[in-house]
């Protein structure tokens, strides 16, 4: 399996929308065939439409806020010794996470499609919060599907969604987390696809949703390429881009424009609690390929194909599947994947928040753990950049409970 140079990764699929012949596709009920075809046609057109691109850039600049800063973590670098550690502080984007890019683009598409309603799923609550924000801005009625367990553990984001006027639908089936929220959202769309636009919150689901999401978050690396060249004069040979992966949307955005460079990509999955058999790390733990939410991917499942339970302290990474794009990157050996445990992520959060002016949420804390582990082993001429794609504020309750205190 090989990645082609000079072609956007999202476009490297065959006629059945499969990446590397194995991942992705459209495993969907007949009812969704047409809405998905329509959306595919519309997006194909809009991607090339100058006025749409102008509109997107306008809102990315004036509404999302670009570029998000690239900062050197001087104290952390000095503390660890070794590689130079940087953070791309994507959590500075409006709303506090990368999910705003996908949400904004989906609202712009919904407007062009003439839809008045928009629905979406959420795990950590960021995708839902951003979608509700953007929906409010663009005058769309918004419904968010969220697992009942996640509603409890991500209270600040739930409150934000309510303030934005979104209806939150608690999902009480199965594990009551992201996987069930996505299923329920899709079921809702099956019943309402004539009036409603659906936003899938990550680079998962039927092909078109993977495409729209990765195309939207690519803004992160468009900015980062410029920032890296500004900082180092060129894209250095020894540079590692570290990103947490749940569904994989922030990592796709963080890496996209570096695809044809020497930059090394490392994705960090959620390893779950140290003493638990459960995890949310299908790539690290050698899960088999299966079909989840309309796409073939590595997915935590049992022998028969029942989707497996996952466990992670981080609601945003607590998903049994992983984007087909990441499966493609893994099997073509373009990216490497590893995992960090709940405890390791918490420790990383603590260290970064103590030493630096940023305070990563539990999702990017998984990536910071890997940075902290790697940096001392590397030369000072080497560079690590971590995507700090969320802020710890939303995890205040969990952190307090686990560590006794919350610092920011």
């Amino acid at each position: 399996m090989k990645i082609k140079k000079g072609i956007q990764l999202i476009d490297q699929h065959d006629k059945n929308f499969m990446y590397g012949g194995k991942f992705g596709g459209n495993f969907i009920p007949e009812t969704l065939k047409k809405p998905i075809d329509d959306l595919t046609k519309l997006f194909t057109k809009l991607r090339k439409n100058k006025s749409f691109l102008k509109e997107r850039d306008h809102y990315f600049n004036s509404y999302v806020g670009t570029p998000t800063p690239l900062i050197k973590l001087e104290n952390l670098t000095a503390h660890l010794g070794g590689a130079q550690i940087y953070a791309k502080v994507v959590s500075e984007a409006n709303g506090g996470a990368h999910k705003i890019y996908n949400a904004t683009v989906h609202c712009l598409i919904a407007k062009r499609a003439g839809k008045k309603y928009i629905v979406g799923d959420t795990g950590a609550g960021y995708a839902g919060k951003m979608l509700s924000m953007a929906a409010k801005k663009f005058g769309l009625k918004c419904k968010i599907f969220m697992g009942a367990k996640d509603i409890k553990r991500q209270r600040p984001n739930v409150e934000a969604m309510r303030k934005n006027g979104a209806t939150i639908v608690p999902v009480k089936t199965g594990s009551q987390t992201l996987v069930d929220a996505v299923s329920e959202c899709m079921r809702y769309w099956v019943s309402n696809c004539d009036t409603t636009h659906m936003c899938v919150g990550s680079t998962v689901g039927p092909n078109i949703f993977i495409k729209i999401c990765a195309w939207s978050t690519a803004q992160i690396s468009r900015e980062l390429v410029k920032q890296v060249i500004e900082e180092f004069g060129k894209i250095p040979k020894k540079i590692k881009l570290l990103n947490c992966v749940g569904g994989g949307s922030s990592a796709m955005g963080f890496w996209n424009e570096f695809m044809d460079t020497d930059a090394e990509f490392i994705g960090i999955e959620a390893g779950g609690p140290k003493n638990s058999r459960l995890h949310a790390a299908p790539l690290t733990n050698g899960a088999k390929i299966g079909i989840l939410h309309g796409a073939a991917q590595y997915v935590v499942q049992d022998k028969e194909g029942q989707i497996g339970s996952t466990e992670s302290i981080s609601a945003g990474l607590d998903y049994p599947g992983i984007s087909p794009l990441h499966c493609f990157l893994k099997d073509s050996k373009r990216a490497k994947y590893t995992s960090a445990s709940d405890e390791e992520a918490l420790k990383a959060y603590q260290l970064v928040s103590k030493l630096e002016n940023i305070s990563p949420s539990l999702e990017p804390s998984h990536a910071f753990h890997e940075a902290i582990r790697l940096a001392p082993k590397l030369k000072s001429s080497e560079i690590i950049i971590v995507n700090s794609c969320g802020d710890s504020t939303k995890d205040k309750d969990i952190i307090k409970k686990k560590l006794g205190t919350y610092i920011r």
Partner: protein
Amino acid sequence: MKSKIDLAFKKCKKEKRPALITYTVAGDNTKNNSLKILNVISKHADILELGFPHNTPIADGGQIQGSSHRALRNGIKLKDVFQIVKKFKVSNPSKPLILMGYFNLIYQSGENNFLKSCKDSGVDGLIVVDLPYPENKNFAKKCKKKSIDFIQLLSPTTSKERMRKIINYSRNMIYYISMLSTTGGKLKVSPRKILHNYSKIKRINRKKNIVIGFGITNKTIASLKKADGLVVGSQLCKTITNSLKKRLNAAKVLNKMVYNLKKQII
């Protein structure tokens, strides 16, 4: 060998009535009970659909999800599903049985392996909810080789051009989804409108047996009896749920219910 599904439709046509097709979930709530249910309702139903449960279904409503979870909680495995079919077929060899479910279970067991188990146990047809045309072409071909009817689905969102292609590609039975809904939704489109769409589809090819499903209950079934066949699923699952709650014998209750459904379309 003639398709038993086709024979069932022929018999119903002779009797000038639609085929009654039931859907229940294998293993709901236990292996034995679901077999008992199949045995009793097969006295009234013309074709039986049997769901093989999946825990992440993207097109099922609450009732069928409930049945699936019950079955899975009681440890139902694919091999049990085939065993249920096999046992059912021993006592009802000529009654057509269709398995229905999601593709991941087929994918994990391997397409060929899955079809072999279907053949060995006596499955007559297959509905795979999340394997639409044209992605299902290869698998449908494999089914044909094994003389298993792969049943294509049509929905109100299916374009006319697409319908032609699907119908052309289909075999003895086609499943028309009555409305934009998951299974078990309330019928939100008038029966007249459904039949209007239905007759448009029939006009494309009158020879195909086209059944209507989704939202069909004892309240709506009579109004749709012009169709070649009618599927009742969620109402049966709901009835099992209620019977379990009230500690009633689900097979007995379902027997009566399916009898009454049939009476309405004779």
